[in-house]
């Protein structure tokens, strides 16, 4: 397991890096509005009514580039890889190096499944 992880580690690190960088930047506004401002009534719920939310998610630039879906996909998928990598690191911090191969595969596997489901949800809009 660990040998397999060693082989793909550079790719995982790249995904993790973008998860932290792009994921964090995209998540901040999402959490603020979707998680706090609208539920607390500080912003009117009509801002993200079904029609507007769907329109934003499927918005495209010049009718060609699906910006809405691209941004949404990044927001859904990238944080998973940051999550997986850091939970794996936390596991090692607490003395779990012996099972690191198995735990790593499971955590990245969850991130992969989540990524597929997330991209599927976005594409299907």
């Amino acid at each position, binding site marked *: 397991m660990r040998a397999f992880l*060693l082989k793909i*580690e*550079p*790719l995982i*690190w*790249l995904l993790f890096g973008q998860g932290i960088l792009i994921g964090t930047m995209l998540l901040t506004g999402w959490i603020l509005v979707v998680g706090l401002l609208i539920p607390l009534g500080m912003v009117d719920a009509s801002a993200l009514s079904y029609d507007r939310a769907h329109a934003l998610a499927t918005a495209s630039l010049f009718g060609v580039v699906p910006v809405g879906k691209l941004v949404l996909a990044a927001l859904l998928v990238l944080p998973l890889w940051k999550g997986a990598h850091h939970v794996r690191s936390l596991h*090692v911090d607490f003395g779990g*190096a012996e099972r*690191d191969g198995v735990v790593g595969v499971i955590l990245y596997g969850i991130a992969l499944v989540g990524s597929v489901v997330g991209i599927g949800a976005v594409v299907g809009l």
Partner: protein
Amino acid sequence: MAEKTIVITRFDPDKDQAPRKQEFKVPCEPDWKVLDAVNFIKDELDGSVSHRWSCRMAVCGSCGMMVNGEPKLTCKTSINDYGDRIDIEPLANFPVVRDLVVELDGFMHKFESVKPWIVRAKEKAADQAALHPSKGTYSQSAEELATFKQFSMCINCMLCYAACPVVANEPEFLGPAAIALGHRYNMDSRDEGNAERNAIFRGEGTVFSCSYANECSEVCPKNVDPAAAVNQAKFEAVIDWAKNLVLPRGGA
């Protein structure tokens, strides 16, 4: 002059099952370093205390110990930074040979494994053409030096290994100083060993195990900033990996 209680961790493999603590009352002078207190104990109070030290001026890297739980060069650490009770232990994360002396072979092995020397792809007469015509030496600009000079300042004191959570938990991890040194040679314009070192960096001791705790750089007494080296090395290793996918290296 103030009397302080210095607590030394003792361990004699012939007599002790496990390390134990021994307290000493030491009359400390205000200009003392922690090393002076330990030397006082050995000279005046208990000659059986074992510890490593040499230059007294933070260049040999011998006197690293845990002082109140933090890795320090004891020759560089003022006794005034501490109160009445100072707890001195051997460097964390290393097997202990005796008292404050730790086993260094593990580090030496990791150190050697990154090939910390100039590697030239070929040593032939044809290489002579690359030498500076008038001096018969390799030429390197100040700018080229600047890319790695900081990482060459390491004195191998191993405080970074004592501070690193990954070293503590993953025995195969190469560790801050070894990776910083390997990276130093990778960045050296005279060196041509990047491919070999990047293969080691992606091997069992993988640089990617570094979780960027940054503790190594926090404790480094020479401002080497090994965390910067390790994380730059990750980037270089990714480039090497990508190049290999597209243009696989032939042979070993």
